């Protein structure tokens, strides 16, 4: 039976079919749905770990324990997991271990555009790259085979366009894998220098052996169309090239992007007038070719930044300029916004009003940096807000008007260690934990602070207040971010305090079951003085009536949070 599957769903299907038994991941767009779909199979134990490092260590432990295991993350998550990943390359595996990493060329939902293939090259771990959903499923099988044959973790690299595209997959049954026996084997698993030195040689030999495999394997294929022009591509770029050029050129489609074959490529290039490498982001394939004296054209034509498209391939290789017929210019943009009733809105309104320097973090609340709130001054990576605030205060001890804002999931991911640093090394900053009881931006995943597992079972929830106190923070306050008067008072008090403090702003995300939803509010146009005070919070439910300049409420969006009512000095806004 053929089914239309999302790339991420197809990876999960592959995990099921090829007998994976343990999955541990941290959510990150565009990788999140792999783990969510994997959790729907009763045969697979699947969990959300607090962060990617813990997730990969869990999966590696499961591999040592004798079952096929898996971890998924976005590209920046692989940086967090890099520590175990680089040494897992040395230990190798017992049962197969596959690590999926989803890159985001074009930065649809990310803070940078790094190319994960570089991680594969530097950790010396083989990396497969599927070009549609059917390959997403199939390559999971190839990855497990390689992992067990060559004693190595294997990367599966996705990009947004593969992870979030649906295409047809022939559904198959699951093949159970026998539990691998567990042996005590310190030379393999205990990476002290004495054991790691020979292991490094093992890794180099393994790479050579896998490169040999890559010369003649099922995933690297030549499509000979008898053309003097050749194209080398992998993943979604292969699809763009194929769409643009059809059978006018010949192709090497590389299903394995590390290690890359040498002979296969040089044989393909022999006798051709021109060979193009079509790859997004870094010139990984191109540099490999050039290092081996193979003459190819790559980044002199194609950009280092952003996505490639089939129109771009047509333009660069065929010289065909694509004209679009219609356009209406100078339209207002429509950036993403915090939802109506979002509990973060009240906090950012207060922070803006107080004019403090806000160290932000990664999550829905990063949208607090957008107009009209404009209330975030830094965003770098998961956890930066807390450690960055500490450094900022060490540089500017006098001016304390700086805070960190971090969501519950991000705080557990990598904010806690920063807070320990603040307590231990005595800075007097204020960390605001925006506890909306969910991991919001990635589509509402549970986390260790919510008390519910990925599979939906009740479990222990991290007690954030007790945790902060145990770290050594004496001043821990809990507020409802909707009560903006209280929030303002508490933030002012904590900014005055001469020791580190934590404010937990607690109210559930408006999109989850626990959300507090009320009937929509209404605005009396007679009482509205058109002062637009209520518009300062950037609520998508509010707009100005172009007829008379008064503010109106979109009753289909409003969830009755009441924040606008608190700002209206004329009593024009009320519950319905």
């Amino acid at each position, binding site marked *: 039976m053929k089914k239309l599957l999302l790339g991420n769903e197809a990876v999960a299907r592959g995990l099921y079919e090829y007998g994976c038994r343990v999955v541990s991941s941290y959510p990150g767009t565009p990788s999140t749905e792999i783990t969510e779909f994997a959790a729907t199979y009763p045969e697979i134990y699947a969990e959300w770990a607090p962060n990617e490092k813990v997730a990969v260590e869990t999966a590696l432990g499961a591999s040592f324990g004798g079952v096929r295991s898996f971890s998924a993350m976005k590209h920046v998550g692989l940086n967090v997991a890099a520590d175990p990943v680089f040494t897992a390359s040395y230990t190798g595996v017992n049962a197969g271990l596959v690590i999926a990493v989803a890159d985001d060329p074009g930065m649809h939902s990310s803070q940078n555009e790094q190319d994960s293939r570089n991680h594969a090259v530097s950790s010396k771990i083989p990396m497969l790259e599927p070009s549609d959903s059917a390959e997403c499923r199939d390559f999971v099988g190839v990855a497990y085979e390689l992992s067990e044959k060559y004693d190595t973790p294997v990367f599966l690299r996705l990009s*947004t366009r593969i992870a979030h595209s649906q295409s*047809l997959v022939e559904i198959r049954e699951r093949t159970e894998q026998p539990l691998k026996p567990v042996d005590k084997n310190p030379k393999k698993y205990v990476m002290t220098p004495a054991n790691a030195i020979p292991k490094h040689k093992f890794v180099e030999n393994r790479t050579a052996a896998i490169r040999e495999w890559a010369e003649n394997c099922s995933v690297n294929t030549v499509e000979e169309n008898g053309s003097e022009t050749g194209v080398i591509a992998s993943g979604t770029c292969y699809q763009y090239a194929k769409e643009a050029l059809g059978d006018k050129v010949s192709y090497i489609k590389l299903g394995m992007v590390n290690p890359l074959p040498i002979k296969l490529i040089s044989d393909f290039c022999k006798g051709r007038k021109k060979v193009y490498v079509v790859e997004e982001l870094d010139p990984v394939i191109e540099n490999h070719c050039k290092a081996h004296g193979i003459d190819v054209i790559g980044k002199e034509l194609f950009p280092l930044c952003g996505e490639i498209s089939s129109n771009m391939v047509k333009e660069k290789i065929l010289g065909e300029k694509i004209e*679009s*017929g219609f356009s209406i210019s100078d339209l207002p943009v429509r*950036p993403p916004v915090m939802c109506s009733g979002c509990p973060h809105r009240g906090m950012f309104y207060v922070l803006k009003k107080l004019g403090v320097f806000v160290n932000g973090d990664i999550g829905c609340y990063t949208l607090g940096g957008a107009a009209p709130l404009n209330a975030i001054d830094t965003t770098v990576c998961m956890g930066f807000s807390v450690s960055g605030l500490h450094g900022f205060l060490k540089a500017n001890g006098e001016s304390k008007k700086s805070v960190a804002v971090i969501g519950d999931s991000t705080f557990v991911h990598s904010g806690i260690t920063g807070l320990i640093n603040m307590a231990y090394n005595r800075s007097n900053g204020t960390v605001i934990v925006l506890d909306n009881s969910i991991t919001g931006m990635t589509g509402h995943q549970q986390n260790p602070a919510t008390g519910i597992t990925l599979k939906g079972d009740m479990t222990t929830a991290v007690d954030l207040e007790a945790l902060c106190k145990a770290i050594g923070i004496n001043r821990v306050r809990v507020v409802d971010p909707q009560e903006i008067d209280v929030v303002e008072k508490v933030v002012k008090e904590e900014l005055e305090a001469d020791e580190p403090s934590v404010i937990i702003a607690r109210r559930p995300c408006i999109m989850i079951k626990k959300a507090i939803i009320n009937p929509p509010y209404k605005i009396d146009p007679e009482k509205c003085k058109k002062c637009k005070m209520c518009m300062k919070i950037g609520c998508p439910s509010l707009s100005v009536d172009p007829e008379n300049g008064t503010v109106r409420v979109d009753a289909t969006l409003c969830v009755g949070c009441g924040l606008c009512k608190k700002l209206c000095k004329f009593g024009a806004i009320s519950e319905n």
Partner: protein
Amino acid sequence: MKTTNIMIVGVGGQGTLLASRLLGHILPGMGYDVKISEVHGMSQRGGSVVTFVRYGSEVCSPIVEKGEADYIIAFEQLEAARWLSYLKKDGKLITSSQQIDPMPVITGVRAYPESLPDRIKQAGVDELCIDVLSLAKKAGSSKAVNVVLLGVFAKLTGLSPDLFKEAIDLIVKEKFRQMNKTAFDLGYAVLQ
């Protein structure tokens, strides 16, 4: 067979994903190769969203590019205008007349562009602009704009209404099924 390119554009939260899910259910059943592509994550939070649906005998790229769309199904006027350059010269735009203010309009930095449907028509676009929101409300929910638009699309392309209704039975929760079928019929009847 040549690939047909559809784009479904709107504002995050308007239900564009259900429209593509229904199409994704119907088209493979008719024997087509199909690719559907959308971006999840940040843009879904009230931002401009787009889904690409491509079907034919063999589909390579999952993306519809500028000048390639046979149909653009727009849930909102401004989004119809925003994605217009993706429409083929002889493509067809089906748009809801609904207006949703984007943040620059809400904050007063920009005004919502005036008479967009007329300007689009004047640009030479084969445009069908419909008060979809009223039809959706008539069916029972403002959220049913997606299925009303699919009804219009089905009539225009000759796709069987029964297939859509079967897909609604399979995909939509029971308590919303009848409402969605009514919404589909109201859309289908627009071009009678």
